[in-house]
């Protein structure tokens, strides 16, 4: 068997096979296109996990570079969105396993981020109510387990249950359970 750099005989992205003669530039273009489409949700998901903008940004780029390498090596990717989120998730989890150098998005940072956004409503009472509610939600979010939080974050980024299950390498029924629990916790906090 030939050793050396991998070069796929055929490159598939979904059901589409890239033209063998143009695949270098075509693949680059395709990955750039995917980067444009998914960079923001992936970045936001990573930012939620890592709590550090620079790391999240760096990792987002890393995810799409991995996508390029994987496609280049001939691995078929059927669902690019689920794939990039899975790689992002795994990279973030590995990153967090390193010695504690990563700062989680702590309460103060979260609050600062919330404060940076101006409230469109001018009514102070409404605003107070909303802020109180938001406090409760944030409090509830602290009670979520990491898996529940991951499921909610991924769902918030528009992934369906199957994709979430794929990203987190768990069963769909488990995704349902995590989401159910997470939503219950939030509902309990805001309704009590």
């Amino acid at each position, binding site marked *: 068997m*030939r050793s*050396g*750099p991998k*070069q796929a005989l055929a490159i598939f992205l979904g059901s589409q096979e890239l033209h*063998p003669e143009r695949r*270098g530039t075509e693949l*680059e273009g395709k*990955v750039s296109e995917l*980067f*444009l489409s998914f*960079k923001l949700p992936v*970045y936001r998901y990573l*930012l939620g996990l890592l709590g550090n*903008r*620079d790391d999240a*940004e760096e990792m*987002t*780029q890393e995810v*799409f*570079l991995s996508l*390029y*390498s994987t496609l*280049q090596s001939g691995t078929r990717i059927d669902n690019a969105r689920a794939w990039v989120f899975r790689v992002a998730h795994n990279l973030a989890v590995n990153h967090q396993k*390193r*010695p*504690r*150098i*990563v*700062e*989680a998005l*702590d309460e*103060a940072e*979260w*609050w*600062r*981020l*919330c*404060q*940076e*956004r101006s409230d469109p409503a001018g009514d102070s009472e409404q605003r107070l109510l909303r*802020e*109180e509610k*938001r*406090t*409760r*939600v*944030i409090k509830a979010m602290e009670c979520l387990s990491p898996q529940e939080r991951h499921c909610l*974050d991924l769902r*918030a980024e528009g992934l*369906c*249950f199957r994709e979430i299950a794929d990203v987190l390498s768990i069963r769909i029924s488990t995704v*349902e359970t995590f*989401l*159910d629990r997470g*939503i*219950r916790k*939030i*509902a309990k906090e*805001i*309704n009590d």
Partner: protein
Amino acid sequence: MTKRTWWARKHWHPSERDLLLYVNGEGGSKLAPSVRDHLEGCWSCSMKRDRITGAISAFMRAREAGLDGEGLSEGAGRRFESKLRRRAEKAEREHIASKRENPSRSRHGVPLQAALAVSLFAVTAALVWLRFSSVPSVSAREILSRAERAESMRIGAVNAPVVHQLLHVTRRVNGLYPESAYLETWRDTLNNRWKQETKEAVAVAGGFNSKGLGSRRRSREGDPRWVAELEEVLKSNNMHQNPMSASAFAGWRSRLKTPVESITETLLENGDKALTIATTAAETLPKNAITKAEFVVRRQDWHPVEQRLSVSEPVGFRSYEIRETSFEVVALGSLGASIFEQPVLPAPLALQSSSLDRPLAAESQTDALELEIALFHRLHQAGACLGEEVRVVRGASAKPEVRGIVESLERKQELTRLFAEFPGVPVVIQAVSGEEKAVLAANSGTSEAPAADAASIGTEGDSEPSPMKNHLVAHFARLDLPAEARRPRMVEFSNQVISLSQSAHLHGWALRRLAERFNDVHLEKLSPQAVARFRSMANDHLRALSSVVGRCDEMLRPVLASLANAENAENRPAEFPATEAGNWQSRSMRVFESVMKADRLIHSLFAGTEATANLQESSSALLVSLPLVLEDTRAAESKLSVLVSVPGQPVISAQSNQQPTP
């Protein structure tokens, strides 16, 4: 349909999980229609559904509030494209190499020569593209060595140099408030001595507390306890003498066995370009060891401006963000030789900090505060608050004292006479000795005399005339002036601008000292007369700043307008609304920061050797920053009038006849 089936269907309610699936559009073709039909007639289940959707909406709102708008930085796309291109190049090169090893193997029947030609073309194109579009690659070592060189050049320009730095430090610990403090350091590089003072920041960022959102911590004075912890961390990592310097960072970096490093180009808050070295220790480190450090160096002059340190913790995280607020290299003589022996003498910030909270009865505390205001006011009247090293401090018994160093015996006598009417207040003022004065005089050309700096712009014997000088020559040539009068006018113009900037610098510092020393709580306790005194001092500085900066703006705008990027100069950044947020203190600190920024820009343009490329940027930045100072000053004035308005009390203007330039 049997009776049982009919009964079961009639009394069937979807479970919470069914509702969750339905709400998420996951019910499938079987479950979704039946749940939808059921919800139409079942209030109880509708309520459950609303509960779920309500929780989802609340989660989304809270999440969006935190993350929305948090997009990738502007250059992220470009950097990614560049990385992708490089990876593609690499893959292509490897592919060609593998083909060369085994030339008989042509997978897709592409002629080898053609593939090579295409690859070469692609490599060349990529190199050209990289040359013109990407950030030039630079190593951390190179950045650090440049920063070290720049620092030693700055230090070397002054005789008997003392590096004075004011650092704003923010500490973040998992689940706790971010806390801030100012760290002020003096480093005598000649005699290898150093001194450090701390003071908790006046305005601390809003935090999240257990009782709810929106609480803003009141300012506190005195040494924050965690500063000792920071000192411990710095000491453990051998950075304690010099918390923010390239050499200290390089030292820490060199001790790591397996550092993981990256360099990114970033923009500072003021728009300056910077390079950030992020170094992470991959090995396990003991307690208090720095596991990750980010070192930010301003590109313009390779000066370190920010450092973020993450410290190893068994659980959670702890990090410190150290931001430089001011940096200057001064001659030891100008500080007084006793600075390192008598820590309280010339410390402009910290002298009030250590003993303020010493126990004093409430009444005597107010009395002491009033006395302090009166002493401040007297210093203000004597003009000693503008650049003279005379301060009102709290002595061992927590009572106010006047201490300092002045340049002549006459001045000492004058000030001593002024404070004679405060019996019981110790006045310890020293005159600089003859030897120290000689040192001062020797250094006056390098650090103390702006006029000399400015005049150097017009010196004909300059081997390398600065771009600013060329611009001024061209500008004055356009004016209707006789040829022989142009040069003196140009020198006068430069001297005047630098002198105004120097004056603004001094008023900025005086304002800052007031803002740091007296907070809302203090002012509430004071008598109307003391409040009026305080207000008159603050107002004097604010008015002087308005006048000086306004004059500076008038002078510079016609000269720099042609040089500055017109679009940037016109479009002032809307950094924050002029008069809404913050209290008087934070507003004053804001004024101080904008004054320092403008001062730095003026010095870099008129007294530095600004490169042509930066000349345009600096001019634009200056034309933007001057109106901002005026705006900030107005905002501070308005906050001050609201904060300490005393009905029926006339405002005493202590310095109404004082010249803005000392």
